[in-house]
C-alpha cells in the first residue's frame, strides 16, 4: 500500500516534471522561425559546406562535424585510449601517451587551432592541447589521425594553449596553475615566494608540421588563462589573459576575485625569438617527451628531451608587458584587422577593447604605471580603444564575422551578443540554451572569416533533448548570422564537452583526404607485403605472427605450437588498396583491445594466452559478404609441450623446415 502510494506520487511528480519541461522547451522553440529546417538541411548524398572540429574536453578527443547539418563525421582519438580502433593499445601507438610521468592515457582536450598561412586557414593540420598533463597534439587533416604529441615541461594545467601565429610559426601556451619551477617540495603557503608561471613557444616546421619546444618565458606566478596572437599589423605579438593576480592558493573562487583588475600579458614574440637565437636564454635541465608517428611504418617513436631554454623578462627588456584588464578575464580575442584586442572580464559588467596602435604608442612613450617583477605595466586608459558598456553577464569568448561585427558569449545571462567592434555598439542579442562557453564562426579568428554560421557550445543542456538520466550530452546551437539579426536554426548534441571549435570550408580539406596507405610505401618491420610473406616466427617465448588480411580471409588462419608463457604479437597487414575497407582483428581474451587496420597499414596486437585451448580470432569490421567467414584459430598448448610450430591457410600448412625448403 505504502509502496503504491509512493509510486503514485512519483508518477505524478514525473508527469509534472514533463509538463514543466514541455513548457520550457516550447518557449525555447518559439525562438525558431521560418525556414530554419531548410537552412540546416543537407540532403542525403550531399555534402556539408564546412567541417567543424570540436574539442572533447573530458573525453580527451576531437569530433568532426559537418555544418550546417550538425552531422557527426568522425571522432578522432587524441589524448585518450580508444579501444574501438586500438589507438593507444596497438604496439605502434602505445608510445603516443609517453610523458615524463610515464604513460598517461587520458587528458582533457580544450582548444582547437587549425594551421594558418598568412592569417587564413590552410587545411593542413589541427592542433589541440591536453590540459591536465600538459601536452599539445597535432592531427594530420589528410588522414584525420593524431600523428604527434609533445609534452610541455614544468607547467601545470596547460589551459592557455595552443594558440597559433598567422603563418603557423609558433603555438603559444601558458600555465594555468602556477607551480614551483622547477618542481620542489615546498609549503603551499610559500606561493608568492616559490611559484611561477611560464609562457611557452612551440615551433612548427613549415613543411612537415613537426613541433619542437623553442623557448619558455618565465613569468610571475599568476594563472595564465587564454591567448591569441596578433595578425596583420599586430603579427609578432601575443596577448594572454591572466586571472589570480592576487596569487591566491586556496578558495580561489573568492580569493582570486579580490582585485578590480587582473592583467593582460603582451608578448613581443619576435623580440623573444631574437633573444633566443642570440643565445640570451638560459638552458635548464628538465624532462619532457616528444612522440611522433612515422607515416610509412605507422610506428610512434618516443624521445625524452632533457633541456629547455628559459627567457627571463627581468634580464631581457622589451619582450613582455602587462596592461590591466577588468576582473578575472577569460577569453582574449583579436579582430580580423589585428587592431582590436578584446579582453572578456568574466566578473566585470563591461568589456575592455584595446587598440594595438595605442598599446604600441604607450610602449613607445613608456606610459607605464610601475612594473611587476621587472615587467612594465601599461597605463590602462592609454591602451584602451573603448569599453562596451553592460553587454551582458559573464562574457567569455568572442569571434568575428569579417564585416566589422564581433560575437561574444555570455555564460551567466545565456546569450550571444553581436556588437560593432569599431563603434562599440550592441547590434543584436539572442538567447542560447543554456550558458554558452565558447562559440565558433568558420574562420572566425582569422584575417578572413567566412561568416555565415555561428555555433554556440553550451555548458548546460537540461531540457533540450529526450532525457538520458543524470548525464546529458552537451548541446551545440547553430545560428545563421548572414543577416542583421542572428537566427537560431539547429540544435545538436555533442560528445564530451567541447570547449572550443574551429570550422573551415570543406574545400580546404576534402580534396586532400587520403583514401588508403600505398602498400608499396609500408616500411613496418613486421609487415607482410603479400600473402606469400605471411608466417610465424618464434624466438624463445616471443612469437611474431606476420598476418595478412584481404576480403575475406586472414593468412595464416590456423596457428599451432604456441605454448603457455609465450608472448604473441599479431602483426596484421591490410593488403587492400581500396577506400573504406579497413579490416579488424580481435582475439578472445585479449586483455587490451582490438585493432582496426586501414588499407596498406600494419598494426600489432600483443596477446598473452591465459589458458591452453583453441581460441578464435576474427575480423571485426564488416568488410564483405563473406566477412563472417573471415576468422581463424590459434592453438595454445601447456608450457613445455612439443607441439610443432605450424601455420597455414586452406590446409597448406607450413612449418619452419618447410619454409626453409621453400626459400631455397
Amino acid at each position, binding site marked *: 500500500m505504502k509502496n503504491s502510494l509512493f509510486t503514485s506520487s512519483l508518477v505524478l511528480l514525473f508527469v509534472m516534471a514533463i509538463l514543466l519541461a514541455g513548457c520550457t522547451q516550447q518557449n525555447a522553440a518559439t525562438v525558431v522561425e521560418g525556414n530554419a529546417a531548410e537552412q540546416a538541411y543537407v540532403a542525403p548524398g550531399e555534402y556539408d559546406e564546412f567541417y567543424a572540429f570540436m574539442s572533447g574536453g573530458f573525453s580527451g578527443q576531437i569530433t568532426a562535424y559537418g555544418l550546417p547539418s550538425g552531422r557527426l563525421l568522425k571522432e578522432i582519438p587524441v589524448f585518450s585510449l580508444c579501444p574501438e580502433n586500438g589507438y593507444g593499445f596497438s604496439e605502434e601507438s602505445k608510445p603516443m601517451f609517453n610523458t615524463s610521468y610515464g604513460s598517461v592515457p587520458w587528458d582533457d582536450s580544450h582548444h582547437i587551432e587549425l594551421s594558418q598561412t598568412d592569417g587564413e586557414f590552410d587545411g593542413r593540420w589541427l592542433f589541440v592541447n591536453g590540459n591536465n598533463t600538459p601536452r599539445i597534439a597535432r592531427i594530420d587533416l589528410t588522414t584525420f589521425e593524431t600523428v604527434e604529441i609533445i609534452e610541455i615541461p614544468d607547467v601545470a594545467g596547460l589551459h592557455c594553449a595552443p594558440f597559433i601565429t598567422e603563418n603557423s610559426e609558433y603555438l603559444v601556451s601558458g600555465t594555468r596553475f602556477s607551480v614551483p619551477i622547477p618542481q620542489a617540495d615546498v609549503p603551499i603557503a610559500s606561493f608568492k615566494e616559490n611559484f611561477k608561471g611560464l609562457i611557452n613557444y612551440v615551433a612548427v616546421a613549415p613543411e612537415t608540421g613537426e613541433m619542437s619546444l623553442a623557448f619558455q618565458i618565465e613569468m610571475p606566478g599568476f594563472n595564465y588563462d587564454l591567448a591569441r596572437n596578433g595578425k596583420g599589423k599586430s603579427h609578432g605579438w601575443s596577448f594572454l589573459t591572466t586571472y589570480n593576480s592576487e596569487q591566491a592558493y586556496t578558495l580561489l573562487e573568492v580569493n582570486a576575485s579580490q582585485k578590480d583588475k587582473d592583467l593582460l600579458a603582451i608578448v613581443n614574440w619576435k623580440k623573444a625569438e631574437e633573444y633566443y637565437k642570440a643565445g640570451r636564454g638560459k638552458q635548464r635541465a628538465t624532462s619532457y617527451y616528444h612522440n611522433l608517428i612515422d607515416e610509412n611504418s605507422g610506428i610512434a617513436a618516443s624521445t625524452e628531451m632533457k633541456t629547455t631554454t628559459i627567457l627571463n623578462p627581468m634580464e631581457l627588456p622589451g619582450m613582455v608587458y602587462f596592461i590591466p584588464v577588468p576582473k578575472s578575464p577569460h577569453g582574449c580575442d583579436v579582430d580580423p584587422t589585428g587592431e582590436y584586442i578584446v579582453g572578456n572580464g568574466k566578473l566585470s559588467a563591461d568589456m575592455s577593447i584595446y587598440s594595438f596602435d595605442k598599446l604600441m604608442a604607450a610602449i613607445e612613450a613608456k606610459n607605464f604605471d610601475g612594473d611587476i617583477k621587472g615587467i612594465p605595466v601599461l597605463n590602462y586608459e592609454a591602451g584602451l580603444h573603448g569599453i562596451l558598456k553592460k553587454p551582458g553577464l559573464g562574457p567569455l569568448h568572442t569571434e568575428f564575422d569579417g564585416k566589422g561585427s564581433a560575437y561574444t558569449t555570455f555564460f551567466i545571462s545565456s546569450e550571444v551578443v553581436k556588437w560593432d567592434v569599431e563603434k562599440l555598439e550592441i547590434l543584436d542579442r539572442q538567447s542560447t540554451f543554456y550558458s554558452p562557453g565558447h562559440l565558433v564562426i568558420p574562420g572566425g579568428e582569422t584575417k578572413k572569416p567566412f561568416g555565415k554560421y555561428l555555433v554556440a557550445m553550451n555548458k548546460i543542456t537540461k531540457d533540450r533533448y529526450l532525457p538520458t538520466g543524470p548525464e546529458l550530452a552537451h548541446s551545440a546551437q547553430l545560428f545563421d548570422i548572414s543577416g542583421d539579426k542572428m537566427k537560431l536554426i539547429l540544435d545538436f548534441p555533442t560528445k564530451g564537452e567541447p570547449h572550443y571549435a574551429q570550422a573551415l570550408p570543406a574545400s580546404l580539406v576534402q580534396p586532400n583526404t587520403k583514401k588508403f596507405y600505398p602498400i608499396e610505401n609500408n616500411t613496418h618491420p613486421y609487415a607482410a607485403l*603479400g600473402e606469400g610473406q605471411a608466417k610465424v616466427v618464434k624466438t624463445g617465448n616471443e612469437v611474431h605472427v606476420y598476418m595478412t588480411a584481404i576480403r575475406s580471409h586472414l593468412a595464416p588462419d590456423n596457428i599451432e605450437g604456441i605454448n603457455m608463457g609465450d608472448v604473441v604479437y599479431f602483426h596484421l597487414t591490410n593488403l*587492400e588498396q581500396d577506400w573504406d575497407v579497413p579490416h579488424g582483428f580481435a582475439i578472445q581474451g585479449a586483455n587490451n583491445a582490438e585493432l582496426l587496420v586501414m588499407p596498406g597499414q600494419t598494426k600489432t596486437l600483443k596477446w598473452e594466452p591465459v589458458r591452453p585451448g583453441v581460441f578464435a580470432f576474427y575480423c571485426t569490421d564488416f568488410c564483405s559478404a563473406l*566477412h563472417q567467414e573471415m576468422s581463424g584459430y590459434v592453438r595454445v598448448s601447456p608450457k613445455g609441450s612439443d607441439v610443432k610450430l605450424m601455420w597455414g591457410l586452406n590446409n597448406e600448412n607450413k612449418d619452419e623446415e618447410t619454409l626453409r625448403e621453400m626459400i631455397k
Partner: protein
Amino acid sequence: MRIHFFLRALTVLSLTCWLAVGCTGSEGGSSQTSSAPAAAPSPPASPKGIGEVKNVTLTDPLEESMLVSGKAIYDMKCSGCHKLTDQRVVGPGWAGVTNRRRPEWVMNMVTNVDVMLDEDPVAQKMLEECLTRMPNQRVSIGDARALLEFMRKNDMEQVGSKDEATK
C-alpha cells in the same frame, strides 16, 4: 538448427546488402548503368572489356624486366586471392588466363575493376560465381602490363600455351 537457419538467412541478407552497396557505392560507371533507359538494348560486349586499355601489342620472347616486376606485384597485391594454378580460392586461378581473355580485357579488369564488375558481362558472371568483389588494388596501367607478361609466362609453365584468346 533454428540458429543455423537464422545465420544462413543473415548471410544471404548481408550478401544482398553488400552487393547492393557494391553497385551503388563504386566510383563512376554505376550511375551510367542506372540512368540508362531500361528499354534500350545493351550493345554487344567487347572482348576487350571496358577501360583505358584499347590495344596491347604482345611481343616474344617475354620481356625479363616486366616478368620481375610483374611477379613482385602479384606477390604483394594479387596472391591473396589468385593461385597460379587453376584452383579457385577467392578469385579464379590464373592458369590459362591469357588463353581465355584478351590482354586488353585482363588489363582493364585489373585497372578499372569497379566499372568492369558493374558493366562487363563476363566480369559480372565471374562475380556471381565468386561472390566477392575483386578489390581495386591501385595497379597502374604500366604495372598491369607487367602483370600480363607474368601471366603469359605462368600460362606457358602451367598449361604449355599462351595468348590463345588473341588468335
